[in-house]
């Protein structure tokens, strides 16, 4: 049984149905890539997995470590070990990165973390992600550049040590250096902590730095192709349009 099991997931927003039966299994230690063109439902899946109130699950289920979390509150999912790195991280004025991290860590624990232990963990994460120490005393995402926001996401991920992380287009808007730092950070968390990850991306370039074992292609609310890393190369050669043409009829048949 996989740690995260998504079964026949149908999701709609106020005006339309976006996901139309998604199945996906992700376990600790596995790196998955979810690729797809704009509007295919990638971000909807990411937000739904963490329980965003704007997305309504009309059918199907999400199970995490054997518990049905389909209707759990977002913070309960987080405490259970799920994490979402946002495509557009929200700024939280007035709260430093370090203070926010401490609150988030304490939310998962019975007793508050000791100052010394927290410092050690923070230092480790800072080195892992190659961020400046002063970074942690700035207000979270407030006035951060695009690259800084994404690093802050990965820093939080490193500190909170989830079992499965969903990275929603973490690569978008990053220059090559930031992209490399972020991707290598994910790879190291996978190697060191056994992180399971679902890397959602539109492009292939992040996958040059972090190697997925499983690749899924999402189109029009359904996963239309699955395979190994060779699928990324094929996508690079052929593009989404050609794949769409090939699977179009098959997708229809599958319904």
């Amino acid at each position: 049984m996989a740690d995260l099991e998504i079964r026949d997931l149908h999701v709609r927003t106020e005006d339309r149905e976006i996901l139309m039966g998604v199945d996906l299994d992700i376990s600790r230690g596995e790196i998955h890539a979810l690729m797809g063109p704009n509007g295919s439902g990638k971000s909807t899946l990411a937000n739904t997995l963490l329980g965003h109130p704007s997305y309504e699950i009309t059918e199907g289920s999400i199970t995490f470590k054997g518990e049905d979390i389909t209707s759990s509150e977002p913070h309960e999912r987080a405490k259970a070990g799920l994490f979402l790195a946002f495509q557009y991280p929200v700024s939280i004025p007035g709260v430093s990165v370090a203070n926010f991290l401490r609150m988030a860590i304490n939310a998962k624990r019975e007793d508050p973390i000791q100052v010394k232990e927290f410092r050690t963990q923070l230092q480790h994460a800072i080195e892992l992600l190659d961020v400046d120490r002063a970074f942690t005393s700035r207000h979270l995402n407030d006035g951060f550049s695009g690259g800084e926001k994404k690093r802050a996401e990965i820093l939080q991920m490193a500190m909170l040590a989830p079992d499965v992380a969903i990275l929603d287009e973490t690569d978008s808007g990053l220059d090559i250096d930031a992209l490399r730092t972020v991707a290598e950070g994910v790879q190291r968390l996978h190697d060191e902590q056994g992180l399971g990850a679902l890397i959602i991306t539109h492009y292939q370039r992040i996958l040059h730095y972090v190697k997925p074992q499983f690749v899924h292609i999402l189109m029009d609310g359904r996963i239309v192709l699955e395979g190994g890393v060779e699928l990324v190369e094929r996508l690079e050669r052929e593009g989404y349009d050609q794949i769409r043409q090939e699977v179009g009829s098959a997708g229809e048949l599958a319904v």
Partner: protein
Amino acid sequence: MSAPAGGAPAAPAGSAPVQEKAGRHREASLYHALNGAGAGNGRSLAQLREAALRTFETSELPVWRRSGFWTTSLSELDLDSLSVPDVEAGKVPGVVTRTLPERPRAGRIVQNAGTVVDLQLDPQLSARGVILCSLEDAFRDHPALVEPWYSKRLTLDRHKLEAANAAMWTGGAFLFVPAGVVVEDPFEIVYAIDGPGVAQYARTLVVGDERSEFRVHEYDLAEDFGASAEDGSPPQQALHAGAFELYLRDGARCRLAQMQDWGGGDVFDVSTRFVGVGRDAHCHWLPALLGGHLVRQHLELAVMEKGGDMAFRGLFFTEQNEHLDVFAVDLHETGPSGGDVHWRGAATGESRASFEGLIQIEPGAQQTHTYLQIHSMMLSPKARLDAIPSVLVSADDVSASHGGTVGELDESAIFYMQTRGLDRPAAVRVIVEGFFEPLIAELSDEPLEELIRAKVAEKLAAAGEDIEAYATSR
């Protein structure tokens, strides 16, 4: 309350305008600066008390109105049911010992109702000429230091409660910091009301002589005696009518903070505070208005001489059915001068908060640079919060501008924090605390910062249901 009968209408006091007709529903806006000489102006305390008493006798309770926005009326106040009780000297009310942080302090004066019940002053400061005592004692023991400043800029005849204060104040606080004396720890001035039925006429005078540097922390606190019952029994009210003036002479620097929380009882607070900044002097002033049944504050910070500079901060948090009316004035009487006004407020429950911020630049106050910003946050569907900035400029070589935001809780920020494991109330708390934090951190005084953070957190916890209701209503 007893007061002498009869008497003619108040004579003009100094250059202050005379109210020709006192009335419960005067439409004329009272939202203007004190703006000019006060009632003092060479008159003795006895003369001032007498003039004020005449105004008190002949005027009615005031109404402040901003047409289309708000009305602050004292019609609910049963003044006749209130009195200044005798209190035991030396007995500090529980609310004071519970609230004030344990910390080093330069001195402390505590007034309960109309009586000073505690006075402490660091003997080393006393030896250097620092004076902290009741204002009554100061008039007796240090008339030469008090008389030139007393009511120098405060008036006594704008309305009945201002007159009541000027006529009937007892106790009071006087702080004098001599030239060149620098004091790190704060002087604490505390006004406490420990039960219903109390009228408190609070009078504070602070003078910072040339190049002095010091901190003043004022606390306005009431025992939580509970709101009036709605069964027709007599109201359980209390009144704080305050008058505060602080003058900084050449080159003096003061950090003034005020922490007001009148608790859950029906406490009415109608106060006027004036801070005058002298040549090259500087004041950082931060009132934290955290509760009161009906609170009306006229807060005026004036640069009176060249080179004066000010940072005028403020925060407020209203809950339940509280009514808050703040008028903050950033007054520049001469230039060059600098000003920076920054307020933040939040409202929950069915509370009502009104803020008017006025930048006023007098003729001749050239090369003044000032900015006023007010940010507000709505936390409940039934609360109402209005913020009006206004600018009155009578000089041409100045920069004066204002800005502000009106916000609600950001649901995307709440979801973001939830995905990090914080539950919804914790996420809301982070947002609201973060909203106030830029101002609280500016106090650069850890014990007071912690106290204000704790008060905000307490109020947020109490408002949990309202905040939830607001989220689902949107």
